[in-house]
């Protein structure tokens, strides 16, 4: 099992160091598999709703409820119940409280060895009628239906100065560091510096400086604590002004204060990283707070509670699983894993996670970085994240593009 898990991870273009590191984590964390993922029932909702509608008289007073087989089924089941309610109301039924209902519809979805199935009991006075919708799971274990996800890291750029963010532009690359924004173009031997513009000579940056690049067409913006730089991609006429702007993150925010390293939501909740979640369930965002807690927030950005720990988090999507939202979360590498393969203990690990209901499920084998993570950025809905790690041993910062690869 460990060998398979190891083989499913790609850490590309690196010297043996990170490969060894990846192995180290696999040894300790190799038990994490994608098998924990719960089934989705979205594709059954319409059929079930239509069957319910066929046995419920139109324009009636209906109460819709659901019974999950276990807690992990709650979120997808709620989605099915919502679809049932939508179909019934669209054709004139009224959704009422249980006491006032002439018809009670109870929905349940789960899996057995043969299929994924949703059932509904339609109870009217003393009669009970059951309808079902199911999809055979003969192919559930086939590669098509259940791809193995793996984190794939491609090294982009390395330098001795801290890298705050990078933005690939075809065969060019923008690099944001504490002193400048630099444009590189691809050359045979790697990257060739084309242009560089200094930023913030008069500014005192926080010790843990963070920065973010956003490229829109031919214009770029660089977000820094208490400052924003704007200009064209070729960096001519780049100007920086002191202003606290919202940063391009998954959740609304007021940017970073000039002397801090964390964001705040408009409601005043502090966080260091954020990821948007899917529409199934009541949680809309996962936030890593400054204390290292991973917490969920609802659509009004009200905290729903902690679900784990993470030093930073970003959202990621997988091409083979459209609509599914994954979390790329970082945490300190388990000490033993690093030591066993002669790694410095001061490294971070990236984990690919899914939020189901209010639980965190591991979706891929974790990936060890060649040092401490210093930046983790992803545009909302993006399939690629930018990861920067600081290797204290070699004294350099290295930027990677991390994505989810699907093994079919």
């Amino acid at each position: 099992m460990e060998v398979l898990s190891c083989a499913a991870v790609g850490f590309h273009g690196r010297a043996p160091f990170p490969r060894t590191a990846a192995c180290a984590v696999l040894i300790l964390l190799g038990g994490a598999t994608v098998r924990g993922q719960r089934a989705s029932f979205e594709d059954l909702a319409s059929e079930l709703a239509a069957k319910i509608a066929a046995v419920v008289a139109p324009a009636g007073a209906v109460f819709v409820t659901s019974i999950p087989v276990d807690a992990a089924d709650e979120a997808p089941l709620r989605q099915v119940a919502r679809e049932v309610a939508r179909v019934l109301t669209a054709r004139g039924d009224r959704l009422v409280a249980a006491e006032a209902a002439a018809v009670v519809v109870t929905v349940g979805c789960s899996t057995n060895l043969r299929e994924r199935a949703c059932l509904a009991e339609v109870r009217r006075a003393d009669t009970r009628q059951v309808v079902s919708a199911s999809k055979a799971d003969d192919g559930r274990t086939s590669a098509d239906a259940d791809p193995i996800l793996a984190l794939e890291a491609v090294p982009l750029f390395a330098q001795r100065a801290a890298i705050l963010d990078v933005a690939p532009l075809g065969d060019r690359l923008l690099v944001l560091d504490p002193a400048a924004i630099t444009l590189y173009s691809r050359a045979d031997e790697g990257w060739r510096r084309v242009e560089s513009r200094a930023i913030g000579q008069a500014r005192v940056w926080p010790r843990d400086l963070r920065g973010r690049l956003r490229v829109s067409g031919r214009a770029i913006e660089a977000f820094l604590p208490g400052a924003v730089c704007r200009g064209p991609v070729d960096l001519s006429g780049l100007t920086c002004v002191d202003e606290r702007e919202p940063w391009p993150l998954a959740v609304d925010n007021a940017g970073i204060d000039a002397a801090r390293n964390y964001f705040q939501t408009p409601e005043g909740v502090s966080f260091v990283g954020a990821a948007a979640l899917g529409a199934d369930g009541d949680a809309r965002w996962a936030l890593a707070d400054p204390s290292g807690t991973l917490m969920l927030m609802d659509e009004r950005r009200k905290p729903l509670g902690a679900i784990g720990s993470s030093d930073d988090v970003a959202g990621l999507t997988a091409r083979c699983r459209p609509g599914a939202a994954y979390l790329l979360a970082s945490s300190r590498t388990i000490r033993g894993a690093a030591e066993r393969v002669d790694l410095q203990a001061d490294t971070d690990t990236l984990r690919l996670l899914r939020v189901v209901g209010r639980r965190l499920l591991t979706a891929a084998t974790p990936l060890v970085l060649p040092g401490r993570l210093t930046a983790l950025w992803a545009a909302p809905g993006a399939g690629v994240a930018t990861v920067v790690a600081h290797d204290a041993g070699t004294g350099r910062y290295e930027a990677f593009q991390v994505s989810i690869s699907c093994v079919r």
Partner: protein
Amino acid sequence: MKRFRSAFPAFASACLAAVIVSAARPQYGGTLRIDTRANIRTLDPAASPSDVVETAASNRIAPLVFEPLVFVDPAGGLKPLLAASWESQAGGKRWRFRMRGGVRLHDGTPLEPWHVATSLRGVESTWTIAADGDAIVIDLPQPRPSLPWELTDRRHAIAVRRTPTEMIGTGPFRIDRIDAGRVWLRAHDSYWSGRPFVDIVQIEMGRSFAAQLTDLEVGRADLIELQPTDARRLTQRGLQVAASRPLDLFALVFEPHRAGSSSEPLRRSLARAFERVALCNVLLQGRAEPAETLLPAWLSGYAPAFAAPAGLPLSRSAIMRLPVDQRTLTLRVEAGDALARSIAERIAVDARESGVLVTVQVPAGLAPRPDVRLVRVGLDATSPDRALARVMAALGSRTVALATNEPAPAIGAPLDVVLRVERALLEASIVVPVAHVPELYGVGERVDEWDAQPVTATGGWNLANLWLKPPAPEARARP
């Protein structure tokens, strides 16, 4: 930005392997010793075992020797085994199974499609089965859209008869010999999925639970059958307990003279009188699940609340107003089933609290007619329609007829039909589910596993992946 995709896995595997070497790398050889209560006469897939204990043991041992075309994946769905792929035509009246290449029989000869056709013809006389190139084609008198599920049954496993008494298969082990007290299996060196680690599997038959426990504890056995009530004893000694998903149903079944509608309120009251959760957590040491339905949710695919009967029990005062003979029940359990007896006694204690007087009866010779029996029914890890049909068959036509007029769900029946039948069976509380219990095994100290657990979720024995640790150096040094 050169990618190292192809090189990395090899490197990673190599460095991972290097670390494993320092821990423990699986070793080949040795004899794995297993105890069972069953007395197995034959492993012939087509033979009918004589009792439920032999059926259960045969269902675990025979697949090690004889493999079917497809099998039920413990994670759900079907997976190819001897068949590489399959397709149906004419609405399921004709099926074509393309055979996996490179499969060898236990005598080293390649498995040919005609071997498969001959084997299946031996158990299905109404099917027309023919070899066709690298495939077999099955023509059926009636469409069977779920034929692949039927082919997962043990009796459809492929057995090639060399002589009237000698059979060979393709599984990871071949039959070495079967005598009165033991079955000997030997590793199949050219098994298509890789030779098993152990050389020999020795199965000691007819061992009671108590004898098995002793065998494991003194190192005479490596794998034993275990009762939930003994699981803690093993874990406290640092031994591993392996478990399937719940595959046994304990249920109360009322006798005909207590199955009338006039007795229904009392039956319902008894069904609600005992605390299933406490029974599972305390008596069964957390190794069982409370049962409100015949099929556990992992087999049915619906929440128990959908199938559980809706009627209310009598209050204690209403029960106490009944004549004593009406609220007195004799509960019979099988004489040899100590676990069933413990459960029955717990039910009796709880029932007394509700005013129902239950006397547990363990028949030895002639005994008075019971009012209700506590039965243990083995569940098949298969599709819900087939699983429920098997439960109904095990309960017996007499019991089923008392409970409902509904026939067993047809093969391939949709889930709402399965639910309707199960609900009908439970409606009158003539059959009252009590607990779902997994198959449990005690695993000896020298057993280690590679890449999988010793027992799968569906109960299969994963013996090909087990290996035996060598004795520790100090143990080797001892005289």
